[in-house]
């Protein structure tokens, strides 16, 4: 008998409807075949399904079984077809009754007949919503991902036996309650470093605050051990929480990448990703035959930290240029073209030269001019042009390091800790969210030029100063607009409605690179 069960396959962030057709023949040699361009992980589903059915107390039929994943010309991968295949076989043997309403079945089977946490359930939920499919049967550990979407019935399935009982009307599975989005956000992200622990570097901390508020890219240069890495890691503690729309975008990507832990729902902590300099271009940008998101997409709406920036291969760095400008990356492969969002805030850290001590007041640089040129040539003009804030992180004076923090505090007033800075950042981000409501733009850094015309209010004096600077330093058109964006963030931090000359002056100070 032939049965058809609905499931889905993922291509990029889109889910395609897949019909799992199962036919159990009455005649012929026993066998189990899966067709419809399955990859290795689906081929292996045979053994998982067979064993899971037997361990659920079902006699696996000694008959010829053919499973077709239609449409047959889309390559399919992943372990998610285990459940639809098993249900298809059971329905063909007339051991279960398929629900009358259209339903998605989705999930990986364990050999004991239980269901395992499967990636992509959030995307499945979205597909169910857009394609008008009422019910989704998913592993209970992944079900929360779909439960954040209103309008679909999400059934959390623990095991095959439970689902058989449900479909036959013996013991119903309770469908999950819709999880309101507000309930999910958690503020207790554990951070490694607090800004209060970083001694000195006041200007760098200020620049970090601006960058975090407006989502601006930042580039730190300084001698080894000055605290660049510490500053970057501490930044994860001052990032504002994701707003609803941002959280949905991030959850899509994380669900596809399988980065949502078992039982997790909507991602609420802003991503902070670190990539080592040996990361390949595909690893950073995304790619593969069936395109997968890279680090830049995984840090969408969050932070990507690239330490030892000039150590990355040239091709990898240059590939960042287009996504940094557009906020998304388009990956084209034979199977088709995929757009992944990649609107991230870049934190890059570098030494000024291979030995690291160029320009250090105390230690001599041992590099030859040629070595320095070669090292710095990695930081190409177009790439550096896209970075809004350039700061120097000089080595901290030993006396300052050794001084007792309490006496230090007494002399200069309390050092701002991450919690306090975060409040400032959240306030500035709220101003931006209000400004761009309904535009799918969340930060000043993501403003397009038309938005600048529409939203930015700059005083004539400030504009004059900006013009002068552009002429004197021969700044590019892109830099001009980026300067306005940074000035806007500084104004937001100062709670000023207009951009004043001192805001522009501060923005300029971060722009002009000291050689």
């Amino acid at each position, binding site marked *: 008998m032939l049965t058809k069960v609905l499931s889905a396959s993922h291509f990029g962030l889109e889910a395609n409807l897949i019909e799992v057709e199962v036919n159990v023949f009455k005649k012929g040699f026993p066998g189990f075949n899966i067709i419809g361009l399955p990859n290795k992980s689906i081929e292996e589903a045979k053994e998982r399904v067979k064993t899971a059915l037997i361990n659920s107390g079902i006699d696996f039929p*000694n008959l010829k079984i053919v499973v077709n994943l239609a449409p047959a010309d889309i390559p399919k991968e992943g372990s998610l077809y285990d459940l639809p295949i098993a249900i298809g076989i059971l329905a063909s043997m007339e051991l279960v009754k398929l629900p009358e309403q259209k339903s998605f079945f989705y999930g990986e089977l364990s050999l004991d007949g239980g269901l395992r946490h499967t990636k992509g359930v959030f995307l499945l939920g979205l597909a169910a919503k857009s394609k008008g499919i009422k019910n989704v049967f998913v592993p209970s550990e992944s079900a929360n991902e779909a439960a954040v979407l209103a309008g679909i019935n999400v059934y959390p399935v623990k095991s095959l036996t439970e689902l058989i009982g449900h479909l036959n009307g013996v013991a119903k599975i309770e469908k999950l309650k819709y999880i309101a989005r507000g309930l999910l956000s958690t503020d207790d992200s554990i951070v490694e470093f607090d800004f209060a622990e970083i001694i000195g570097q006041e200007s760098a901390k200020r620049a970090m605050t601006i960058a975090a508020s407006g989502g601006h890219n930042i580039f730190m240069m300084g001698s080894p051990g000055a605290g660049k890495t510490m500053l970057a890691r501490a930044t994860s503690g001052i990032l504002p929480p994701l707003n609803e729309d941002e959280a949905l975008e991030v959850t899509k990507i994380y669900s596809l990448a399988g980065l949502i832990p078992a039982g997790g729902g909507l991602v609420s902590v802003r991503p902070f990703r670190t990539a080592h300099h040996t990361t390949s271009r595909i690893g950073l940008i995304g790619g593969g035959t069936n395109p997968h998101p890279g680090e830049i997409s995984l840090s969408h709406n969050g932070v990507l930290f690239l330490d030892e920036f000039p150590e990355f291969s040239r091709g990898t760095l240059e590939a960042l240029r287009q996504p940094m400008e557009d906020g998304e990356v388009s990956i084209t492969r034979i199977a088709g073209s995929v757009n992944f969002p990649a609107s991230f805030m870049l934190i890059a850290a570098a030494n000024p030269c291979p030995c690291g001590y160029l320009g250090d007041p105390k230690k001599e640089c041992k590099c030859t001019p040629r070595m320095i040129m070669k090292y710095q040539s990695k930081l190409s003009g177009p790439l550096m042009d896209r970075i809004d804030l350039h700061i120097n992180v000089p080595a901290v004076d030993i006396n300052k390091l050794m001084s007792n923090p309490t006496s230090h505090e007494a002399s200069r007033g309390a050092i701002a800790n991450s919690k306090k800075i975060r409040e400032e950042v959240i306030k500035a981000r709220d101003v931006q969210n209000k400004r761009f409501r309904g535009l799918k733009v969340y930060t000043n850094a993501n403003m397009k030029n038309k938005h600048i015309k529409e939203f930015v209010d700059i005083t004539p004096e400030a504009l004059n100063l900006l013009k002068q600077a552009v002429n004197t330093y021969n700044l590019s058109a892109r830099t001009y607009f980026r300067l306005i964006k940074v000035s806007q963030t500084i104004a937001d931090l100062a709670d000023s409605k207009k951009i004043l000359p001192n805001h522009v002056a501060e923005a300029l100070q971060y722009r002009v690179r000291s050689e």
Partner: protein
Amino acid sequence: MKQLNRLVGKKGEEIATDFLRKKGYKILDQNNSTKWGELDLIVTKNNILIFVEVKLKTTEDFGTPEEMIGKNKLAQVRRTAEMYLLNNPDIANKFDRYQIDAVCIVEETGRVTHYENITF
């Protein structure tokens, strides 16, 4: 040598025939050979048509009979069986289900093992 092999094979088939008959199988055909391969035994029980591959080894010193039936051997038996079904449509239509079994015999110890419905 070929002569000897055939003799050993014949002995195996006799043991297997007796064995299966005692188990309640009905023997339909024996040593049905085509150009591509040979079907040692064709038997039936419970309305299932069964093609039996018989493997006899005199001793287990040089490997068990089970080791001699691999993926390729099974494919060969299956192909031959399909050929047989095409050539004998009346038999093919009489049964709904077909399967391939193996009977492994070790002469020295007198072990006879029956494997039902083998697949790889």
